[in-house]
């Protein structure tokens, strides 16, 4: 009988529109934060940081970003990889041009630059809708990758065309470069995730979010009741790209350390992040986390079970992994088309009614 809504009355509109209206949820949220900030940094090792936690946190940012655009504003985008690359290259150029400025500022600026680029590529969304738009955003994906590959200025004329993150510190602790300890990199990402998730939450629960959702659900009606579609769509592109740009910058600077644009930010990235938000749940911040966790953890988990646990040949395991991931995606969709977040919501609804079936 832990999960109770009854008796948990709100006495003000502020209390009513808070993020976790149910007390139990609120406590759980604080507990997660406490563990993430207070315990994990002390027990983290390289493997957990690099194989699981860093990618999870960074993809969660990207997923939240894309979810704002696709889940909240209804504009399907396949340009995520390209926008992440913008963030990464912006961050790289800033890091090397202004080595004395804090990396945190660089990361935020990288987000800002990506937002500007995002707005530019968001312009066609005023005319183009649905899957047409999705395919159109691929233009951004391919063009940006080509551009970063093609213009040596972006990679500081290095012979290989790769970019490598120099070491930068926050409060005297290295967070980028090979010497950065796992916990420092993790904490940096965690802080970004926490702040950005809060920002996303704030934006989506108020006026801005309603504008986006109105456009998503029925753009014509939204316009007729007073939503400026230009402003709504472009702001979604901007905010979304801001998030994605930061994710791309973190992905490069903190996680991988060195990237080649075609490999790290190729079209596969765009699809991956899109999968995350669909599996997690469109229009849900929690879903972004769930989706990122699912797609980061599942392959690692499967690999460890199949190869490590069962001792299968790694190629068979890899092929099987594809089948299982594909099968699970389908299974989840059939079970609940609206993603893990909805599954969770339904579970809660059932819990609320428990022990009655309905």
């Amino acid at each position, binding site marked *: 009988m832990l999960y109770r809504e009854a008796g948990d009355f709100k006495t*003000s*509109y*502020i209390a009513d*529109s808070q993020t976790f209206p149910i007390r139990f949820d609120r406590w759980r949220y604080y507990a997660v934060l406490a563990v993430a900030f207070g315990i994990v940094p002390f027990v983290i090792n390289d493997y957990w940081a690099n194989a699981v936690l860093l990618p999870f946190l960074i993809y969660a940012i990207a997923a939240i970003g894309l979810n704002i655009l696709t889940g909240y504003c209804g504009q399907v985008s396949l340009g995520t990889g390209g926008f992440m690359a913008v963030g990464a290259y912006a961050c790289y150029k800033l890091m090397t041009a202004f080595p004395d400025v804090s990396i945190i500022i660089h990361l935020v600026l990288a987000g800002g630059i990506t937002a500007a680029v995002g707005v530019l590529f968001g312009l066609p969304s005023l005319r183009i809708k649905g899957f047409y738009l999705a395919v159109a955003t691929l233009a951004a994906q391919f063009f940006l990758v080509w551009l970063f590959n093609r213009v040596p200025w972006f990679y500081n004329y290095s012979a290989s065309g790769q970019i490598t993150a120099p070491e930068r510190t926050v409060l005297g602790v290295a967070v980028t470069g090979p010497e950065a300890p796992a916990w420092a990199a993790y904490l940096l990402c965690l802080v970004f995730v926490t702040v950005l998730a809060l*920002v996303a939450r*704030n*934006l989506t629960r*108020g*006026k*801005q979010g*309603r*504008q986006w*959702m*109105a456009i*998503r*659900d*029925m753009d*014509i*009606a*939204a*316009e*007729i*009741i*007073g*939503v*400026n*579609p230009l402003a709504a769509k472009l*702001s979604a592109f901007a*905010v979304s790209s801001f998030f994605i740009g930061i994710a791309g910058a973190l992905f490069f600077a903190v996680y991988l350390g060195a990237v080649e644009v075609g490999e790290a930010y190729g079209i596969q990235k765009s699809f991956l992040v899109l999968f995350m938000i669909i599996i997690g749940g469109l*229009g849900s911040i929690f879903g972004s986390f769930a989706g990122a966790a699912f797609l980061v953890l599942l392959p690692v988990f499967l690999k460890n079970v199949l190869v490590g646990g069962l001792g299968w040949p790694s190629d068979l395991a890899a092929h099987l992994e594809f089948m299982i991931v594909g099968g699970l995606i389908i299974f989840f969709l059939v079970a609940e088309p609206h993603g893990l977040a909805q599954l969770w919501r339904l579970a809660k609804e059932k819990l609320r009614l428990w022990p009655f079936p309905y």
Partner: protein
Amino acid sequence: MKDTSEGYVTADGRKIGGVVMEMKNITLRFGGVTAIKDISFDIREGEIRAIIGPNGAGKSSMLNVISGFYVPQEGEVWFRGEKRPPMKPYQVARQGIARTFQNIALFEGMSVLDNVMTGRLTHMTQGILAQALWKGPAEREEVENREKAEKIIDFLEIQHIRKTPVSRLPYGLKKRVELARALVSEPTILLLDEPMAGMNVEEKEDMCRFVLDVNDEFGTTIALIEHDMGVVMDLSDRVVVMDYGRKIGDGTPDEVRANQEVIDAYLGVAHD
């Protein structure tokens, strides 16, 4: 039919003002189809103006012209004594013209409350940074507008479904939510496109009460399309009748009811 530009007082004591909106010689074509042919009429402040006519006559198209969604090939729209320059629908909405739709156009992915709150969008001014921060101005603004929204929600008696996703609501309630969304923006003119379609008598009575109360309490001007003649004749001060894009009648309900052309084209034999 009174023809002065000054106001007058109706039989039941409501004050009707001068002309707020005037359509002048509107013609609207879609490819080969002429949906509206050279129609002119006006709407006075505080009145309930009905538009009726057979299916496909061009009534909804006329509302769409008023709200700026369709741009007529010919003709002018005058609002508050000025010719309205070309405008986007959202700009029209910001002038205080709100509406409901014939085929319910609620935002299916949102709760009732959120849907109603979208009606307040035109009144909310906080920038995106303030909202990202939430605490402070954005929250204050949210609460102020929430209070307004709750008032309308109370008024329309939909408190109990406040948090329900609209996709789960039955038809009639959806219509009511749509009305709430339109009302909450405190419009000067309210356009209603078949607000009572798909309702039974009891619900229609409710709806009529809301419409009348809005008109009464807030002095809102209402333009209304409806097929239920009982409703139209009882509620409206003046009626425009359209048929095949043309205007075939304009006047008080009694005048219209007596118009032979209207009877032939639309009413058929009166069965009251």
